[in-house]
Protein backbone atom coordinates (compact mmCIF):
# COMPACT_ATOMS: atom_id res chain seq x y z
CA UNK A 1 0.00 0.00 0.00
CA UNK A 2 1.85 3.10 -1.16
CA UNK A 3 1.31 6.72 -0.30
CA UNK A 4 -0.83 7.13 -3.42
CA UNK A 5 -3.62 5.18 -1.74
CA UNK A 6 -3.73 7.87 0.92
CA UNK A 7 -3.87 10.60 -1.71
CA UNK A 8 -6.62 8.77 -3.57
CA UNK A 9 -8.54 8.35 -0.33
CA UNK A 10 -8.19 12.07 0.35
CA UNK A 11 -9.49 12.99 -3.10
CA UNK A 12 -12.41 10.56 -2.98
CA UNK A 13 -13.43 10.54 0.68
CA UNK A 14 -12.89 14.20 1.65
CA UNK A 15 -16.49 15.31 0.89
CA UNK A 16 -17.69 12.49 3.11
CA UNK A 17 -16.33 14.23 6.23
CA UNK A 18 -18.78 17.16 6.34
CA UNK A 19 -21.54 14.58 5.96
CA UNK A 20 -20.32 12.67 9.02
CA UNK A 21 -20.09 15.89 11.04
CA UNK A 22 -23.59 16.91 10.00
CA UNK A 23 -25.03 13.50 10.83
CA UNK A 24 -23.44 13.62 14.28
CA UNK A 25 -24.90 17.05 14.88
CA UNK A 26 -28.29 15.87 13.64
CA UNK A 27 -28.14 12.89 15.99
CA UNK A 28 -27.48 15.21 18.93
CA UNK A 29 -30.28 17.52 17.89
CA UNK A 30 -32.72 14.63 17.41
CA UNK A 31 -33.08 15.21 13.70
CA UNK A 32 -32.58 12.76 10.88
CA UNK A 33 -30.16 15.02 9.09
CA UNK A 34 -29.00 15.21 5.48
CA UNK A 35 -27.70 12.08 3.76
CA UNK A 36 -24.06 11.21 4.35
CA UNK A 37 -23.25 11.89 0.71
CA UNK A 38 -24.91 15.31 0.66
CA UNK A 39 -21.61 17.08 -0.09
CA UNK A 40 -21.15 14.94 -3.23
CA UNK A 41 -24.67 15.79 -4.40
CA UNK A 42 -24.00 19.49 -3.80
CA UNK A 43 -20.76 19.34 -5.74
CA UNK A 44 -22.44 17.57 -8.67
CA UNK A 45 -25.27 20.08 -8.68
CA UNK A 46 -22.96 23.09 -8.54
CA UNK A 47 -20.72 21.74 -11.31
CA UNK A 48 -23.68 21.46 -13.67
CA UNK A 49 -24.53 25.13 -13.20
CA UNK A 50 -23.12 28.19 -14.89
CA UNK A 51 -21.41 31.02 -13.06
CA UNK A 52 -22.43 34.64 -12.76
CA UNK A 53 -19.71 37.25 -12.36
CA UNK A 54 -20.17 40.78 -11.15
CA UNK A 55 -18.80 43.44 -13.49
CA UNK A 56 -16.81 44.97 -10.65
CA UNK A 57 -14.69 41.84 -10.24
CA UNK A 58 -11.43 41.17 -12.04
CA UNK A 59 -9.53 38.00 -12.93
CA UNK A 60 -8.57 37.65 -9.27
CA UNK A 61 -12.12 36.69 -8.42
CA UNK A 62 -12.01 33.82 -10.91
CA UNK A 63 -8.48 32.80 -9.98
CA UNK A 64 -9.28 32.51 -6.28
CA UNK A 65 -11.11 29.17 -6.26
CA UNK A 66 -8.81 27.59 -8.87
CA UNK A 67 -5.54 28.53 -7.18
CA UNK A 68 -7.01 27.66 -3.81
CA UNK A 69 -7.98 24.18 -4.94
CA UNK A 70 -4.63 23.65 -6.65
CA UNK A 71 -2.78 24.52 -3.44
CA UNK A 72 -4.98 22.15 -1.45
CA UNK A 73 -4.33 19.35 -3.97
CA UNK A 74 -0.57 19.76 -3.51
CA UNK A 75 -1.08 19.90 0.26
CA UNK A 76 -2.97 16.60 0.18
CA UNK A 77 -0.06 15.07 -1.72
CA UNK A 78 2.18 16.15 1.17
CA UNK A 79 0.09 14.80 4.03
CA UNK A 80 0.97 11.22 4.95
CA UNK A 81 -1.91 8.85 5.59
CA UNK A 82 -2.15 5.36 6.99
CA UNK A 83 1.36 5.09 8.37
CA UNK A 84 3.18 5.33 5.04
CA UNK A 85 5.05 8.18 3.40
CA UNK A 86 3.13 10.67 1.31
CA UNK A 87 3.71 10.71 -2.47
CA UNK A 88 5.51 14.02 -2.03
CA UNK A 89 7.95 14.39 0.86
CA UNK A 90 11.12 16.33 1.48
CA UNK A 91 12.94 17.74 4.49
CA UNK A 92 11.10 20.72 5.90
CA UNK A 93 7.95 20.16 3.88
CA UNK A 94 5.76 21.06 6.85
CA UNK A 95 6.72 24.68 6.25
CA UNK A 96 5.69 24.27 2.62
CA UNK A 97 2.48 22.68 3.85
CA UNK A 98 1.70 25.67 6.06
CA UNK A 99 2.55 27.90 3.12
CA UNK A 100 0.08 26.07 0.88
CA UNK A 101 -2.66 26.51 3.47
CA UNK A 102 -1.68 30.17 3.51
CA UNK A 103 -1.91 30.42 -0.29
CA UNK A 104 -5.43 28.99 -0.25
CA UNK A 105 -6.47 31.43 2.43
CA UNK A 106 -4.74 34.33 0.72
CA UNK A 107 -6.47 33.67 -2.61
CA UNK A 108 -9.85 33.28 -0.92
CA UNK A 109 -9.30 36.57 0.86
CA UNK A 110 -8.18 38.34 -2.31
CA UNK A 111 -11.20 37.05 -4.19
CA UNK A 112 -13.42 38.22 -1.33
CA UNK A 113 -11.84 41.68 -1.35
CA UNK A 114 -12.11 41.78 -5.13
CA UNK A 115 -15.89 41.77 -4.95
CA UNK A 116 -15.77 45.20 -3.36
CA UNK A 117 -18.37 44.20 -0.79
CA UNK A 118 -17.62 45.54 2.66
CA UNK A 119 -19.28 42.48 4.18
CA UNK A 120 -16.80 40.17 2.49
CA UNK A 121 -13.93 42.46 3.39
CA UNK A 122 -14.94 42.11 7.02
CA UNK A 123 -14.83 38.32 6.71
CA UNK A 124 -11.43 38.50 5.04
CA UNK A 125 -10.11 40.68 7.85
CA UNK A 126 -11.28 38.22 10.50
CA UNK A 127 -9.89 35.28 8.57
CA UNK A 128 -6.52 37.01 8.39
CA UNK A 129 -6.54 37.80 12.09
CA UNK A 130 -7.42 34.31 13.28
CA UNK A 131 -5.16 32.60 10.78
CA UNK A 132 -2.25 34.68 12.00
CA UNK A 133 -2.90 33.36 15.50
CA UNK A 134 -3.48 29.77 14.41
CA UNK A 135 -0.29 29.55 12.40
CA UNK A 136 2.19 29.79 15.31
CA UNK A 137 0.27 27.11 17.21
CA UNK A 138 0.38 24.87 14.13
CA UNK A 139 4.07 25.38 13.37
CA UNK A 140 5.23 25.15 16.99
CA UNK A 141 3.23 21.97 17.44
CA UNK A 142 4.76 20.37 14.35
CA UNK A 143 8.20 21.52 15.47
CA UNK A 144 7.68 19.72 18.75
CA UNK A 145 6.67 16.56 16.88
CA UNK A 146 9.66 16.91 14.56
CA UNK A 147 11.94 17.19 17.58
CA UNK A 148 10.49 14.10 19.21
CA UNK A 149 10.41 11.88 16.12
CA UNK A 150 13.55 13.18 14.45
CA UNK A 151 11.76 13.55 11.11
CA UNK A 152 11.97 16.81 9.19
CA UNK A 153 9.20 16.03 6.72
CA UNK A 154 5.55 15.39 7.49
CA UNK A 155 6.03 11.80 6.33
CA UNK A 156 9.04 11.43 8.58
CA UNK A 157 7.12 12.80 11.57
CA UNK A 158 3.81 11.02 11.19
CA UNK A 159 4.72 8.07 8.99
CA UNK A 160 7.01 6.71 11.68
CA UNK A 161 4.66 7.36 14.58
CA UNK A 162 4.56 4.11 16.54
CA UNK A 163 3.77 2.93 20.03
CA UNK A 164 7.43 3.46 20.91
CA UNK A 165 7.16 7.15 20.04
CA UNK A 166 4.10 7.50 22.22
CA UNK A 167 5.50 5.68 25.20
CA UNK A 168 8.62 7.82 25.01
CA UNK A 169 6.88 11.17 24.71
CA UNK A 170 3.24 10.86 25.69
CA UNK A 171 2.93 14.29 27.32
CA UNK A 172 4.23 16.45 24.45
CA UNK A 173 2.39 14.42 21.81
CA UNK A 174 -0.89 14.68 23.70
CA UNK A 175 -0.41 18.44 24.06
CA UNK A 176 0.31 18.80 20.35
CA UNK A 177 -2.78 16.73 19.58
CA UNK A 178 -5.02 19.07 21.55
CA UNK A 179 -3.34 22.12 20.08
CA UNK A 180 -3.69 20.83 16.50
CA UNK A 181 -7.31 19.94 17.17
CA UNK A 182 -7.99 23.57 18.06
CA UNK A 183 -6.12 24.70 14.96
CA UNK A 184 -8.11 22.16 12.95
CA UNK A 185 -11.39 23.60 14.23
CA UNK A 186 -10.27 27.18 13.62
CA UNK A 187 -8.83 26.63 10.15
CA UNK A 188 -11.87 24.73 8.98
CA UNK A 189 -14.30 27.35 10.26
CA UNK A 190 -15.81 25.00 12.83
CA UNK A 191 -17.90 25.94 15.81
CA UNK A 192 -15.94 27.34 18.71
CA UNK A 193 -14.49 29.78 16.19
CA UNK A 194 -16.92 30.04 13.30
CA UNK A 195 -20.26 28.45 12.51
CA UNK A 196 -20.35 26.88 9.04
CA UNK A 197 -24.16 26.92 9.01
CA UNK A 198 -24.94 30.56 9.69
CA UNK A 199 -25.76 32.74 6.75
CA UNK A 200 -27.33 35.64 8.55
CA UNK A 201 -25.20 36.86 11.35
CA UNK A 202 -22.51 39.46 11.18
CA UNK A 203 -20.16 37.12 13.02
CA UNK A 204 -19.46 34.70 10.21
CA UNK A 205 -15.95 34.39 8.91
CA UNK A 206 -15.34 31.82 6.22
CA UNK A 207 -18.84 31.62 4.77
CA UNK A 208 -19.04 35.35 4.24
CA UNK A 209 -15.99 35.34 1.98
CA UNK A 210 -17.50 32.92 -0.51
CA UNK A 211 -20.96 34.46 -0.68
CA UNK A 212 -20.44 35.87 -4.17
CA UNK A 213 -19.10 32.70 -5.68
CA UNK A 214 -21.56 30.49 -7.48
CA UNK A 215 -21.78 27.42 -9.68
CA UNK A 216 -18.51 25.64 -10.49
CA UNK A 217 -16.48 28.20 -8.50
CA UNK A 218 -18.41 27.44 -5.36
CA UNK A 219 -17.98 23.73 -6.09
CA UNK A 220 -14.21 24.20 -6.28
CA UNK A 221 -14.23 26.14 -3.01
CA UNK A 222 -16.33 23.55 -1.23
CA UNK A 223 -14.20 20.71 -2.52
CA UNK A 224 -11.06 22.58 -1.43
CA UNK A 225 -12.64 23.12 1.99
CA UNK A 226 -13.40 19.40 2.27
CA UNK A 227 -9.82 18.60 1.27
CA UNK A 228 -8.55 21.00 3.91
CA UNK A 229 -10.70 19.22 6.47
CA UNK A 230 -9.21 15.91 5.39
CA UNK A 231 -5.62 17.08 5.19
CA UNK A 232 -5.51 18.86 8.54
CA UNK A 233 -7.50 16.04 10.06
CA UNK A 234 -5.01 13.50 8.76
CA UNK A 235 -2.27 15.33 10.65
CA UNK A 236 -4.24 15.18 13.91
CA UNK A 237 -5.10 11.52 13.34
CA UNK A 238 -1.52 10.79 12.27
CA UNK A 239 -0.21 12.08 15.60
CA UNK A 240 -2.98 10.59 17.72
CA UNK A 241 -2.89 7.10 16.22
CA UNK A 242 0.42 5.24 16.21
CA UNK A 243 -0.64 3.14 13.24
CA UNK A 244 2.92 2.42 12.18
CA UNK A 245 2.86 -0.59 14.46
CA UNK A 246 0.10 -2.22 12.38
CA UNK A 247 0.30 -4.02 9.05
CA UNK A 248 -0.24 -1.72 6.07
CA UNK A 249 -3.79 -2.66 5.23
CA UNK A 250 -4.87 -2.41 8.84
CA UNK A 251 -3.00 0.85 9.31
CA UNK A 252 -4.92 2.31 6.37
CA UNK A 253 -8.25 1.08 7.71
CA UNK A 254 -7.40 2.38 11.18
CA UNK A 255 -6.54 5.78 9.74
CA UNK A 256 -9.82 6.01 7.83
CA UNK A 257 -11.65 5.01 10.99
CA UNK A 258 -9.64 7.63 12.84
CA UNK A 259 -10.70 10.32 10.37
CA UNK A 260 -14.35 9.37 10.75
CA UNK A 261 -13.88 9.30 14.52
CA UNK A 262 -12.37 12.77 14.40
CA UNK A 263 -15.42 13.99 12.47
CA UNK A 264 -17.68 12.50 15.15
CA UNK A 265 -15.60 14.32 17.78
CA UNK A 266 -16.01 17.55 15.82
CA UNK A 267 -19.75 16.92 15.61
CA UNK A 268 -19.93 16.37 19.36
CA UNK A 269 -17.88 19.51 20.02
CA UNK A 270 -20.16 21.51 17.74
CA UNK A 271 -23.25 20.13 19.45
CA UNK A 272 -22.03 20.81 22.98
CA UNK A 273 -20.33 24.16 22.58
CA UNK A 274 -21.64 27.54 21.61
CA UNK A 275 -19.57 29.67 19.35
CA UNK A 276 -17.15 31.87 21.24
CA UNK A 277 -17.52 35.59 21.29
CA UNK A 278 -15.27 37.00 18.58
CA UNK A 279 -13.08 38.70 21.18
CA UNK A 280 -12.55 35.38 22.93
CA UNK A 281 -11.37 33.52 19.81
CA UNK A 282 -7.84 34.96 19.96
CA UNK A 283 -7.58 33.68 23.52
CA UNK A 284 -8.50 30.17 22.39
CA UNK A 285 -5.92 30.23 19.61
CA UNK A 286 -3.36 31.75 21.96
CA UNK A 287 -4.09 28.91 24.36
CA UNK A 288 -3.44 26.42 21.56
CA UNK A 289 -0.15 28.18 20.86
CA UNK A 290 0.79 27.98 24.53
CA UNK A 291 0.05 24.24 24.52
CA UNK A 292 2.30 23.79 21.48
CA UNK A 293 5.02 25.81 23.12
CA UNK A 294 4.74 23.79 26.32
CA UNK A 295 5.00 20.61 24.24
CA UNK A 296 8.11 21.98 22.59
CA UNK A 297 9.70 22.85 25.94
CA UNK A 298 8.92 19.45 27.39
CA UNK A 299 10.26 17.87 24.24
CA UNK A 300 13.49 19.84 24.58
CA UNK A 301 13.90 18.93 28.21
Amino acid at each position, binding site marked *: MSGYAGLLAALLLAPLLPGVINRTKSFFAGRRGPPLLQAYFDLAKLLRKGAVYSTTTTWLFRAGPVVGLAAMLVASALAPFGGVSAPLAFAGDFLFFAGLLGVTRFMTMLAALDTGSSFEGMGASREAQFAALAEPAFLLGLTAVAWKTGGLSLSGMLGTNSFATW*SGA*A*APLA*LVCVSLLVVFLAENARIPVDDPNTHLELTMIHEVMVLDHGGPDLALIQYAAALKLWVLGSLVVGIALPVRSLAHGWAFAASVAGMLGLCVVVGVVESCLARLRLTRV*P*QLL*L*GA*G*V*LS*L*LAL*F*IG*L*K
Partner: protein
Amino acid sequence: MNSWIDADLVLITLTSLVLLGASRLGTSIRMVALQGILLSPLPLLLAGQSGFGPRAAMLAVATVLIKGLGFPWLMARAVRGGSQRREMDPRIGYNASLLAGVLLMVVAFLLSSRLPLPPGEGTPLVLPAALFNILAGMFVIASRRQAITQVLGYLVMENGIYVFGVGIASHQPLLVELGILLDVFAAVFVMGIVIFHMGRELDHTDTDRMTLLNDWEKE
Protein backbone atom coordinates in the same frame (compact mmCIF):
# COMPACT_ATOMS: atom_id res chain seq x y z
CA MET B 1 6.68 5.66 36.50
CA ASN B 2 8.50 8.72 35.23
CA SER B 3 5.94 9.40 32.55
CA TRP B 4 3.19 9.52 35.20
CA ILE B 5 5.12 12.16 37.14
CA ASP B 6 5.63 14.11 33.92
CA ALA B 7 1.96 13.89 32.98
CA ASP B 8 0.99 15.09 36.45
CA LEU B 9 3.45 18.00 36.28
CA VAL B 10 2.18 18.99 32.82
CA LEU B 11 -1.41 18.98 34.09
CA ILE B 12 -0.40 21.13 37.09
CA THR B 13 1.29 23.56 34.71
CA LEU B 14 -1.81 23.62 32.52
CA THR B 15 -4.07 24.51 35.46
CA SER B 16 -1.81 27.48 36.19
CA LEU B 17 -2.05 28.56 32.57
CA VAL B 18 -5.83 28.31 32.63
CA LEU B 19 -5.82 30.39 35.81
CA LEU B 20 -3.81 33.07 34.00
CA GLY B 21 -6.35 33.21 31.18
CA ALA B 22 -9.55 32.67 33.17
CA SER B 23 -11.94 35.57 33.37
CA ARG B 24 -14.33 34.05 35.89
CA LEU B 25 -13.74 33.81 39.59
CA GLY B 26 -15.50 30.44 39.71
CA THR B 27 -13.21 28.98 37.05
CA SER B 28 -10.16 30.29 38.86
CA ILE B 29 -11.18 28.72 42.17
CA ARG B 30 -11.95 25.42 40.46
CA MET B 31 -8.57 25.47 38.74
CA VAL B 32 -6.76 26.00 42.05
CA ALA B 33 -8.81 23.16 43.56
CA LEU B 34 -7.90 20.90 40.64
CA GLN B 35 -4.29 21.87 41.04
CA GLY B 36 -4.40 20.90 44.71
CA ILE B 37 -5.84 17.51 43.83
CA LEU B 38 -3.27 17.02 41.07
CA LEU B 39 -0.51 17.81 43.55
CA SER B 40 -1.49 15.06 45.94
CA PRO B 41 -0.13 12.02 44.02
CA LEU B 42 3.25 13.71 43.60
CA PRO B 43 4.79 12.64 46.94
CA LEU B 44 3.60 9.08 46.33
CA LEU B 45 4.92 8.99 42.77
CA LEU B 46 8.24 10.57 43.65
CA ALA B 47 8.74 8.57 46.81
CA GLY B 48 7.63 5.47 44.93
CA GLN B 49 11.06 5.27 43.35
CA SER B 50 12.42 4.14 46.69
CA GLY B 51 9.25 2.61 48.05
CA PHE B 52 6.84 5.00 49.74
CA GLY B 53 6.15 4.96 53.41
CA PRO B 54 3.21 6.06 55.49
CA ARG B 55 4.53 9.62 55.65
CA ALA B 56 4.21 10.14 51.90
CA ALA B 57 0.68 8.74 52.07
CA MET B 58 -0.12 11.09 54.94
CA LEU B 59 1.18 14.06 52.98
CA ALA B 60 -0.90 13.04 49.96
CA VAL B 61 -4.08 12.77 52.01
CA ALA B 62 -3.38 16.06 53.79
CA THR B 63 -2.82 17.74 50.41
CA VAL B 64 -6.14 16.58 49.02
CA LEU B 65 -7.99 17.62 52.18
CA ILE B 66 -6.39 21.02 52.57
CA LYS B 67 -5.44 22.13 49.05
CA GLY B 68 -8.08 20.28 47.08
CA LEU B 69 -11.10 20.72 49.34
CA GLY B 70 -10.38 23.10 52.23
CA PHE B 71 -9.00 26.13 50.42
CA PRO B 72 -11.48 26.08 47.54
CA TRP B 73 -14.34 25.79 50.02
CA LEU B 74 -13.03 28.78 51.96
CA MET B 75 -12.62 30.79 48.77
CA ALA B 76 -16.04 29.86 47.47
CA ARG B 77 -17.53 30.86 50.83
CA ALA B 78 -15.75 34.21 50.70
CA VAL B 79 -17.13 34.77 47.19
CA ARG B 80 -20.65 33.87 48.21
CA GLY B 81 -20.64 35.79 51.50
CA GLY B 82 -19.24 39.06 50.30
CA SER B 83 -20.82 40.60 47.26
CA GLN B 84 -17.82 39.81 45.10
CA ARG B 85 -17.98 40.46 41.42
CA ARG B 86 -17.92 37.16 39.55
CA GLU B 87 -16.07 38.68 36.60
CA MET B 88 -12.62 39.92 37.40
CA ASP B 89 -11.08 43.13 36.20
CA PRO B 90 -7.33 42.59 36.08
CA ARG B 91 -4.65 45.21 35.54
CA ILE B 92 -3.25 43.08 32.74
CA GLY B 93 -5.69 41.57 30.24
CA TYR B 94 -6.26 37.85 29.87
CA ASN B 95 -4.48 37.48 26.56
CA ALA B 96 -1.55 39.51 27.83
CA SER B 97 -1.54 37.37 30.98
CA LEU B 98 -1.35 34.21 28.87
CA LEU B 99 1.53 35.67 26.88
CA ALA B 100 3.21 36.63 30.14
CA GLY B 101 2.68 33.01 31.18
CA VAL B 102 4.62 31.95 28.09
CA LEU B 103 7.42 34.32 29.05
CA LEU B 104 7.44 32.98 32.60
CA MET B 105 7.60 29.46 31.18
CA VAL B 106 10.66 30.42 29.15
CA VAL B 107 12.25 31.95 32.25
CA ALA B 108 11.42 28.85 34.29
CA PHE B 109 12.98 26.51 31.72
CA LEU B 110 16.06 28.71 31.33
CA LEU B 111 16.55 28.98 35.08
CA SER B 112 16.10 25.26 35.61
CA SER B 113 18.69 24.49 32.96
CA ARG B 114 21.15 26.48 35.09
CA LEU B 115 20.23 24.66 38.27
CA PRO B 116 21.47 21.09 38.05
CA LEU B 117 19.38 18.53 39.91
CA PRO B 118 21.13 16.14 42.21
CA PRO B 119 21.37 12.89 40.26
CA GLY B 120 18.54 10.45 40.70
CA GLU B 121 16.11 13.02 42.07
CA GLY B 122 12.72 13.37 40.43
CA THR B 123 12.43 13.98 36.70
CA PRO B 124 13.88 16.82 34.61
CA LEU B 125 10.44 18.44 34.54
CA VAL B 126 10.11 18.93 38.30
CA LEU B 127 12.25 22.03 38.47
CA PRO B 128 10.72 24.00 35.56
CA ALA B 129 7.21 23.08 36.68
CA ALA B 130 7.93 24.26 40.22
CA LEU B 131 9.57 27.48 39.07
CA PHE B 132 6.78 28.20 36.60
CA ASN B 133 4.11 27.80 39.26
CA ILE B 134 5.99 30.08 41.66
CA LEU B 135 6.39 32.73 38.95
CA ALA B 136 2.82 32.38 37.73
CA GLY B 137 1.53 32.75 41.28
CA MET B 138 3.60 35.87 41.77
CA PHE B 139 2.31 37.24 38.48
CA VAL B 140 -1.30 36.66 39.52
CA ILE B 141 -0.69 38.40 42.86
CA ALA B 142 0.84 41.38 41.11
CA SER B 143 -1.58 41.73 38.24
CA ARG B 144 -5.02 41.21 39.79
CA ARG B 145 -6.98 43.76 41.73
CA GLN B 146 -9.29 41.68 43.86
CA ALA B 147 -8.05 40.39 47.17
CA ILE B 148 -9.48 36.95 46.55
CA THR B 149 -7.61 36.51 43.27
CA GLN B 150 -4.45 37.53 45.01
CA VAL B 151 -5.00 34.79 47.55
CA LEU B 152 -5.43 32.36 44.66
CA GLY B 153 -2.10 33.57 43.28
CA TYR B 154 -0.55 33.01 46.69
CA LEU B 155 -1.88 29.46 46.67
CA VAL B 156 -0.46 28.74 43.23
CA MET B 157 2.88 30.09 44.37
CA GLU B 158 2.77 27.85 47.41
CA ASN B 159 1.90 24.92 45.15
CA GLY B 160 5.04 25.67 43.18
CA ILE B 161 7.09 25.61 46.35
CA TYR B 162 5.39 22.33 47.27
CA VAL B 163 6.39 20.77 43.93
CA PHE B 164 9.89 22.07 44.50
CA GLY B 165 10.10 20.64 47.98
CA VAL B 166 8.61 17.26 47.16
CA GLY B 167 10.52 16.93 43.91
CA ILE B 168 13.96 18.11 44.89
CA ALA B 169 14.29 16.77 48.38
CA SER B 170 12.06 13.74 48.51
CA HIS B 171 14.04 12.36 51.43
CA GLN B 172 13.75 15.49 53.50
CA PRO B 173 11.63 15.02 56.58
CA LEU B 174 8.08 15.14 55.30
CA LEU B 175 7.12 16.63 58.64
CA VAL B 176 8.66 19.88 57.42
CA GLU B 177 6.39 19.76 54.39
CA LEU B 178 3.40 19.06 56.61
CA GLY B 179 4.39 21.98 58.83
CA ILE B 180 4.48 24.33 55.82
CA LEU B 181 1.11 23.00 54.73
CA LEU B 182 -0.29 23.84 58.14
CA ASP B 183 1.20 27.35 58.06
CA VAL B 184 -0.31 28.04 54.67
CA PHE B 185 -3.59 26.64 55.87
CA ALA B 186 -3.59 29.05 58.78
CA ALA B 187 -2.68 31.96 56.48
CA VAL B 188 -5.38 31.18 53.95
CA PHE B 189 -7.88 30.53 56.70
CA VAL B 190 -7.27 33.99 58.11
CA MET B 191 -7.32 35.55 54.65
CA GLY B 192 -10.54 33.78 53.79
CA ILE B 193 -12.23 35.10 56.91
CA VAL B 194 -10.82 38.60 56.40
CA ILE B 195 -11.98 38.71 52.80
CA PHE B 196 -15.38 37.39 53.84
CA HIS B 197 -15.83 40.21 56.31
CA MET B 198 -14.24 42.80 54.06
CA GLY B 199 -16.65 41.89 51.29
CA ARG B 200 -19.53 42.20 53.73
CA GLU B 201 -18.55 45.55 55.15
CA LEU B 202 -17.27 47.31 52.06
CA ASP B 203 -19.20 45.62 49.21
CA HIS B 204 -15.96 45.07 47.37
CA THR B 205 -12.43 43.76 47.89
CA ASP B 206 -10.72 45.85 45.27
CA THR B 207 -7.24 46.35 46.70
CA ASP B 208 -6.67 49.49 44.64
CA ARG B 209 -9.51 51.24 46.38
CA MET B 210 -8.42 49.86 49.76
CA THR B 211 -5.33 52.06 49.61
CA LEU B 212 -7.61 55.05 50.09
CA LEU B 213 -8.58 53.81 53.54
CA ASN B 214 -7.11 55.93 56.28
CA ASP B 215 -7.22 56.24 60.03
CA TRP B 216 -7.72 59.94 59.88
CA GLU B 217 -9.71 62.27 57.68
CA LYS B 218 -7.76 64.14 55.06
CA GLU B 219 -8.37 67.85 55.25
